[in-house]
Every structure is written in C-alpha cells, then in structure tokens.
C-alpha cells in the first residue's frame, strides 16, 4: 500500500492505521462469521457514510469464503496424512540368513506439518496379515464416520 501512486499524498502513518483498522475489522468479521447486517450496524456506529458501508460489504461478501478457508486453516494439528504409497517385495536372502522367502509390504505415509509444511514421511514394513489389520481398522473408522454423518 505504501508504494501505491494513488495514495502517495497521504501521510504514511495514517495509511498504516487505516490498513490495520480495516484488516482488524475484516478478520473479526470473518472470525465471528458475521453477516452483512451486523457489519453494517457496526460500521454505522463508526460513523461511516452509507455508500462506503455498501462498498465495504460488497467487497467483503465477495471474499468471505476465501477468508473463512484461510482462517480455518490456521492452527495447530497433529501431522496430517496427505497420501500413501506402498511396495510389495519378496525377500529371498539377506546376509544373516539365506532362503528367507518372505513377502512383505513397505508402506510410506506422506505427511504434512501444519506449521512448516513438510516433514519426513512415516515409513514402516508389514506382513500381509498386519496390512489386513490396518486396512480393517481404517475401514472401521470410515464406517463410523458414515454413521456419524447420518445422525
């Protein structure tokens, strides 16, 4: 804003105050999920004229959804799983033991940190039975989700 040619005649301190005030107002409105009438009332109390209030509200409505998504994504949460990859392998021998003949799955869970964005993946190996156990438990969770949405 400080570089905008239209605004260069205005004292920078005043500009900063205006910007901060507008941002605070918008964020509070977003946080409380305020509707247009509530915002209008609030701005009327601040002695803004009708035209300005209307302009503000229109702009706010246009960006309301994006604002809500942004606000909703702020906050701490455990590592978030974004994807999974797997590999099926069949072991024939290793340097400790020959003729092992064992199939196993290598599963990698791609995870994201809410703060920094990336995080080393969670990797583990499992047998077919263990993978069946894991999938069974995940399916229980999904069924439980479905039931919850029907309540």
């Amino acid at each position, binding site marked *: 804003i400080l570089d905008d040619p239209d605004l260069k005649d205005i004292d920078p301190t005043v500009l900063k105050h205006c910007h901060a005030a507008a941002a605070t107002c918008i964020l509070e409105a*977003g*946080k*409380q*999920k305020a509707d247009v009438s509530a915002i209008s009332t609030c701005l009327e109390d601040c002695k803004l004229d009708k035209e300005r209030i209307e302009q503000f509200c229109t702009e706010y409505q246009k960006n309301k959804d994006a604002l*809500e998504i942004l*606000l*909703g994504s*702020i*906050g701490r*949460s*455990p*590592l*978030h*799983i*974004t*994807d*999974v*990859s*797997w590999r*099926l392998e*069949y072991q*024939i021998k*290793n*340097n*400790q*033991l*020959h*003729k*092992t*003949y064992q*199939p196993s*799955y*290598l*599963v990698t*869970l791609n*995870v994201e940190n809410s703060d920094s964005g990336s995080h080393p993946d*969670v*990797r*583990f*190996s*499992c047998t*077919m039975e*263990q*993978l*069946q*156990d*894991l*999938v069974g*438990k*995940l*399916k*229980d*969770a*999904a069924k*439980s*989700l479905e039931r*919850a949405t029907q309540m």
Partner: protein
Amino acid sequence: KLNIGVDTIQHGVEGLVYLLTESSKLMASIPFRKISEVDFQDSIHVLGFSDELNKSLLQLYLDNRKEIRSILGELAPRLPSYHSLEWRLDVQLASRSLRQQIKPAVTMKLHLNQNEDQTAQVLQTDPATLLHLIQQLEQALGEMKMNHCRRIVRNMK
C-alpha cells in the same frame, strides 16, 4: 574342571557357534529334505573328527536349527514394523481464528516396533484422504492374490 586352557575353550566355542550359524543360515529348513543333512555331514567330515563326534554335531545342528534361524532373522536390516493402530473421530467446532466450524477429522495413533523399541506416532487425516488410503491399501493387498505374485512365490521356493 576340563583341564584345558581358556583360549582353547574359547576357540572351541567360537568354532561351534560358527559351524551352527553358518549351517543354519545356508541350509533350507525344510524338514523332509534329507539333502541338507547330508550337506552338513559332508562338510564336517573334512574336519576329520570321529564318527561319534560327527553324529553329535549333526544332532546338535538339527535340534537347534529352527531357533538359530529365527534369531538370525531378527538381525537382518529392517524398517520399523507395524504393530497396531488406534483411531478416533474428531470434529473441530471452533478455533482461535474461526468460530462456528464443523471440521471432521480422524486422529490415529500408529504403533510401530523398531529394534525392540515401540514408538507411537499421532497422525491425523480428513475423511476424503481416509477413503483414498483405504482404496490404495486394498489395492496393495489385492496384489498378493494376483497371478504374477503367486507364480513368483511358487517358483522361488
């Protein structure tokens, strides 16, 4: 009590250990294949011991083979392995930055074993990703039943 030097005994023990672990490592532990016994007998014959000693060694090998193989199996390089999974359903209703939300999530605790330590990791995912995970992992399970895998498992024994 045996009246032999410590070194000799140590060498004797080390020799026995080497003999048993190498034999267990290399030979298939399929009970009905007598060939592995013959292999063992041929190998120790070279050492020039008495017949009685050879028989005892063979018996020692056969008796302990399975256990030795399972212990050797634990020594191989391994990734952390799956132990169990706990899960729960959460719905976020509000946060410091946004009130009046309805955000469902599945929170999980993944228990893994790594070299005798158990670790637990807390993870979270959204419903859409959960369904994606289930689909992908079911595909993975399906692979074992495919002809390709079956053929390889059959032919490599």
